[in-house]
């Protein structure tokens, strides 16, 4: 008898293990990450139909930024306001998010609503895994009108938008330390490229790293710096023509010139020598420790800088952008800006779920959300209606001013195909260490562009 029981147990165990692996993994049942499930019991004017809404995002970093803080508040409000919706949420950190989201997509098990960036859209649309976002947004009254102009540009595919943005701001912000600049004999942030290069030499001579850069993740140099230098050498139309296949090429003279200029800056010691082995968090450490005079980051860095920088460094910190290059075709006030990530909706939702998703998107991207984001020193995709300028930190006011003065242009790595982005990222490291020429870098990027035309 005992033997039969043990045989039974062993067989159950082995089948159980395999069944666990084979089972259709529901996003919401994943307990390996911070998963919350809540069904509010309070009654309200919400529709009576009971629906389940699975949400997958990356608002789960230890360094709480403006979006995370605001999302947290709006999520709780959503759960309280819609008791008929069983809200199943999974949030994991940014770097792991992309891999897991792509794994869900590959297995055709995407959650109802999830974050994505523009480059992921063509694959998901071609596989009929996500739906157009406009009809969903139209289900939430007043939502569409609240968005700023151009915030859907990163999510367009065949002239239709596929995600709802929650942020929009410039990617290129030079955080510079006024005290170090003064110590090096520079009174203000240079207004010409020639003066800027001169300032770098003066900073170097005093033993500081001119610009701290953490390019281990491969995107920092390309997305935050190189992108701007290209816009200083070429007009925005060049990029639009390249993206839309209207004759512009990476190998065009001005782009090669811009690429060689960036390589020259690296060769001349503008950046720390370990730029490819530290990340963008560590680049801030160099700046906070006053070893570097500048670092370059997206708008999302303002809140962490305000919270983490030592008081004297924060006081001396200002925000600027690269000046215009004399004689080049690009303008000095163009700044690449992106919504970057947005909320996408999977196909095959019931009508009740679509209503729930529309409401969720209103809570997670709309005007109320925008007001919170501004209060938390971020830049939302919707137009905020309440801006308390009196209580704003000085650095955040500078960010808003720079945003107002800038002409926004697309960010390459948000819009171009993954193979092109990979070439731009990986080869950038070689360009920066001098093992690849600017000509070769541009040629390889163009080869990847040409592959997508076939």
């Amino acid at each position: 008898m005992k033997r039969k029981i043990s045989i039974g147990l062993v067989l159950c165990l082995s089948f159980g293990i395999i069944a666990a692996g084979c089972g259709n993994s529901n996003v919401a049942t994943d307990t390996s990450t911070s998963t919350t499930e809540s069904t509010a019991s309070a009654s309200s004017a919400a529709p009576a139909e009971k629906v389940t809404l699975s949400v997958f995002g990356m608002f789960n970093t230890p360094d709480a930024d403006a979006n995370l803080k605001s999302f947290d508040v709006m999520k709780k409000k959503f759960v309280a306001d819609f008791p008929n919706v069983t809200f199943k949420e999974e949030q994991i950190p940014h770097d792991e998010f992309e891999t897991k989201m792509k794994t869900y997509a590959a297995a055709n098990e995407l959650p109802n609503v999830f974050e994505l960036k523009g480059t992921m859209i063509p694959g998901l649309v071609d596989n009929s895994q996500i739906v157009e976002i406009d009809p969903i947004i139209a289900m939430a009254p007043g939502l569409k009108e609240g968005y700023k102009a151009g915030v859907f540009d990163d999510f367009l595919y065949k002239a239709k938008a596929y995600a709802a943005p929650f942020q929009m701001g410039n990617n290129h912000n030079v955080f510079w330390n006024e005290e170090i600049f003064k110590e090096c004999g520079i009174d203000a942030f240079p207004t010409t490229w020639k003066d800027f290069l001169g300032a770098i030499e003066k900073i170097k001579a005093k033993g500081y790293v001119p610009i701290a850069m953490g390019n281990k993740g491969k995107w920092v140099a390309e997305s935050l710096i190189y992108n701007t230098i290209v816009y200083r050498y070429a007009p925005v139309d060049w990029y639009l023509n390249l993206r839309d296949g209207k004759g512009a090429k990476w190998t065009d003279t001005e782009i090669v010139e811009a690429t060689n200029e960036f390589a020259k800056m690296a060769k001349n010691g503008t950046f720390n020598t370990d730029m490819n082995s530290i990340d963008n968090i560590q680049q801030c450490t160099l700046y906070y420790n006053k070893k570097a005079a500048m670092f370059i980051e997206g708008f999302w860095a303002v809140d962490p800088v305000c919270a983490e920088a030592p008081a004297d460094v924060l006081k001396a910190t200002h925000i600027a952008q690269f000046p215009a290059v004399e004689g080049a075709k690009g303008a000095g006030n163009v700044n690449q800006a992106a919504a970057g990530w947005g909320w996408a909706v999977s196909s095959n939702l019931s009508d009740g779920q679509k209503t729930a998703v529309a409401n969720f998107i209103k809570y997670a991207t709309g005007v109320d959300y925008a007001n919170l984001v501004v209060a938390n020193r971020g830049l939302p995709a919707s137009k905020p209606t309440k801006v308390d300028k009196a209580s704003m930190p000085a650095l955040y006011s500078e960010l808003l001013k720079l945003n107002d003065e800038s002409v926004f242009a697309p960010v390459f790595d948000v819009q171009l195909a993954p193979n092109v982005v990979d070439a731009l990222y990986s080869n950038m490291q070689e360009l920066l260490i001098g093992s690849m020429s600017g000509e070769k870098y541009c040629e390889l990027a163009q080869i990847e562009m040409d592959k997508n035309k076939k």
Partner: protein
Amino acid sequence: MAKKLKSPKPLTFVLFLGPILALFLFMVVLPIFVSAYYSFFDWTGGKTMNFTGLANYMELAKDREFWMSAWNNIQIIVLCTIGQVGLGLVVSFLLISRGLKFKEFHRTVIFFPVVVSAIVIGFVWSLMYNKDFGLVNWFLTLVGGEKLILPWLDNPSYIILTVSLPIVLQFVGLYMIMFMGAIKSIPDEIFECSGLDGCNELQKSFYITLPMIYDTFKVAIMICVSGTMKVFDHILVLTNGGPGKSSQVLALYAYNISFDRMRLSYGSTIAIGILVLSLLITLSSRAALGGKRYE
């Protein structure tokens, strides 16, 4: 009279081996066949899959990045085999010898990294290699070697060496334990006799110990070669394949193709390529070491 061990019944075999065999088939063998199946398609995830026959394999044969990554793997294999198996052998000789004190302490300390996750090892070493705050450069400053201070993970000319060092040091303990077990199984009488015949410790090592543990040595090399072929986590954390692609290995390439570029079918093709290359390298290392056992 020694009590004869009862031979287990077939059902007992099935019960004990069944669960683990089922797991092995499901998690190791089945994915190989699934990958092979996907490698004949053009698939970026989701429902749409287009049969492309051998097109992925044709591309793989001409893919410079694949072969460059394979070359990086081979360099790491050579360094790890020399480092892990060689150091493991030397350390095991030292720990067996009579002169060394605190043997258990040394054994524990050397073996400890084996049980630590590769991600942790990679992260610790990325801190140690840090140019400004790392232990390596701090130590060089301490002993007056400022001229030797380098950005250890930023130069392609020595990057393979710097990423291999953590892998070598992590697994020395594993081979040390294997060799110590093998050396202890050599009958003491042989050493005693050789001692009486006038052998010194070095001669004992070369003429008795090494030939007697040659089979273990071969197994160690096989494990080292096959284990290093799948190296991934250390490099992902240390350099993410950089600078450029100079420390990219095959597993990292397959991962990048699958999840960065979303070419899941070509990623599967690379995985099959890794399998074939691993088999070739492991079998050729076995052939090179010879099948004969020292008697």
